[in-house]
């Protein structure tokens, strides 16, 4: 957070600040997905749907109904949670079936964004979003937005990191590691899976609201199924199961992809190469790399003592 304040005061370049803002939104998305995929072990391919639901909920609430953005954020999270509840009907399906069901869910929601024109305005999108947080209090400068986002990211990070490191988190990890064993010690697997999906969905909704008001418009394009895949690649690159990994993975990959925007047509190729690279050389992602480095340092220390 302190680093964020420093960055906000020091960095004057609008380009760099807006780059950072984009990255932070993806950090929120990746953190939420990490809870579902990396911690609970449920391969969701529909995360972008909740991201989109949040964006539209917030955009509609603030433009059409003139509500302040705070209410938009809350509605974004509420609707995304509702959407997740719908998707969580599929939790009893396992493995590949769950993955396919969530993929289908994501595709359907995306079609709704495109085709439900009276509400979403279809491909024309909803434009002119304001950043009126509450009353007359607005966040118009990119630096201000950056600070606000940094605060939100910190809050989400602390929330999810603590949640992962607790009785609740252990239950989720137990489900990831071995459902049968988890049930055999009294863990209600279905309930915990649903909770994990709802929490992940709510954070995606939050990210949706953040992105909508960052770009001040909402179109269906960023919420397709491929975005779910990109998010998945981010957490794999960061290290499955690791919250810091998810944050760093999303941050770095978004920075890179935004920075090389001019070569956008190659981005999927680049993602593909990244995933292959990590699968082969660093199956535990950046978090794994970090552990390796720490170990090297410790070894180095020990050698020095000897």
């Amino acid at each position: 957070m302190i680093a964020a304040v420093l960055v906000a005061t020091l960095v004057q370049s609008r380009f760099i600040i807006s780059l950072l803002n984009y990255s932070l939104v993806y950090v929120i998305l990746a953190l939420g997905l990490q809870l579902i995929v990396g911690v609970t072990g449920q391969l969701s391919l529909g995360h972008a749907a909740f991201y989109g639901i949040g964006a539209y909920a917030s955009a509609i609430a603030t433009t059409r109904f003139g509500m302040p953005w705070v209410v938009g954020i809350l509605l974004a999270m509420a609707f995304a949670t509702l959407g997740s509840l719908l998707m969580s009907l599929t939790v009893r399906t396992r493995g590949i079936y769950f993955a396919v069901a969530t993929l289908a869910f994501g595709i359907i929601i995306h079609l709704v964004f495109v085709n439900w024109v009276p509400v979403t305005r279809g491909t024309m999108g909803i434009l002119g979003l304001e950043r009126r947080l509450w009353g007359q209090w607005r966040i118009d400068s990119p630096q201000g937005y950056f600070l606000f986002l940094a605060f939100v990211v910190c809050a989400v990070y602390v929330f999810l990191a603590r949640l992962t490191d607790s009785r609740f988190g252990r239950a989720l990890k137990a489900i990831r590691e071995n459902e049968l064993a988890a049930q055999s010690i009294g863990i209600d697997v279905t309930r915990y899976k649903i909770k994990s999906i709802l929490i992940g969905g709510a954070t995606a909704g939050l990210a949706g609201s953040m992105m909508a008001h960052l770009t001040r418009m909402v179109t269906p394009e960023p919420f397709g199924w491929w975005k779910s895949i990109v998010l998945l690649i981010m957490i794999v690159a960061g290290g499955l199961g690791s919250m810091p990994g998810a944050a760093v993975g999303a941050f770095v990959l978004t920075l890179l992809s935004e920075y090389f925007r001019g070569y956008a047509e190659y981005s999927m190729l680049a993602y593909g190469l990244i995933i292959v690279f990590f699968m082969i050389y660093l199956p535990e992602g950046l978090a794994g790399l970090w552990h390796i480095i720490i170990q090297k340092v410790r070894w180095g220390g020990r050698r020095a003592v000897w």
Partner: protein
Amino acid sequence: MAILEAAGVSKSFGGLMVLRGVSLTLHEGELRGLIGPNGAGKTTFFNILTGVLSADSGRINFDGQDIGSYPIHQRARRGLIRTFQIPQPFSGMTVLESTMTGTHMYYRAEVWSSVLRTRKEREEEEEARAKAKEILRFVGLADRENALCANLPVGEQRLLELARALAAQPRLLLLDEPTAGLRASEKEALKEVLLEVNKKTTILLVEHDMRVVMSLCSRISVLSYGELIAEGTPEEIQRDPKVIQAYLGEGAIAT
């Protein structure tokens, strides 16, 4: 008092009758052996008792309640806890974390108390950690606390299973071949542990090592081709012609 009453439990896979009307009553505090040749249906019986499989017919009463239709976790919540013949570790967890997970149902902390780190939550975590450490000391895994479950050798995997089950504070503990793959010295140590556990917990022990069963159990039930063919003290079982017959293919029972 009977803690478990299985009556007429039958199960078939396709055309294969694996259990034929098995009736078994366990009394509180017992350490009962369940033996039988390979493929007799012992593991299948465990799977039915714990809800992993559903019986084709028959009734299961646990602690005076008909639990036949309960899902696995609800049976566990009533105190019916098992270990697995093929260890089912939480591979990516540390030994301590896995054992702490075993205490899951004794605590309440959910989302908000975990995130806010309320005092109650911190006390619960502290207690769970202490309990898990105590159990690990008890089964002899204290020095492996921080090892990754996946990295334990076979013998320690068995102890890890037992530790997780004990952390769940069973009222009835079902052990499926807990000494398989253990060295003689490890078996001796485990026998001591089981006797100690039995002071507070009823145990149903599936075991192939006759020396272990005969020395631990006061009563033994024998399953053969899905049928309970005998029940009695170790001496009675060793003398029973039906039991000897059932085991002939595998060589006589060693004493």
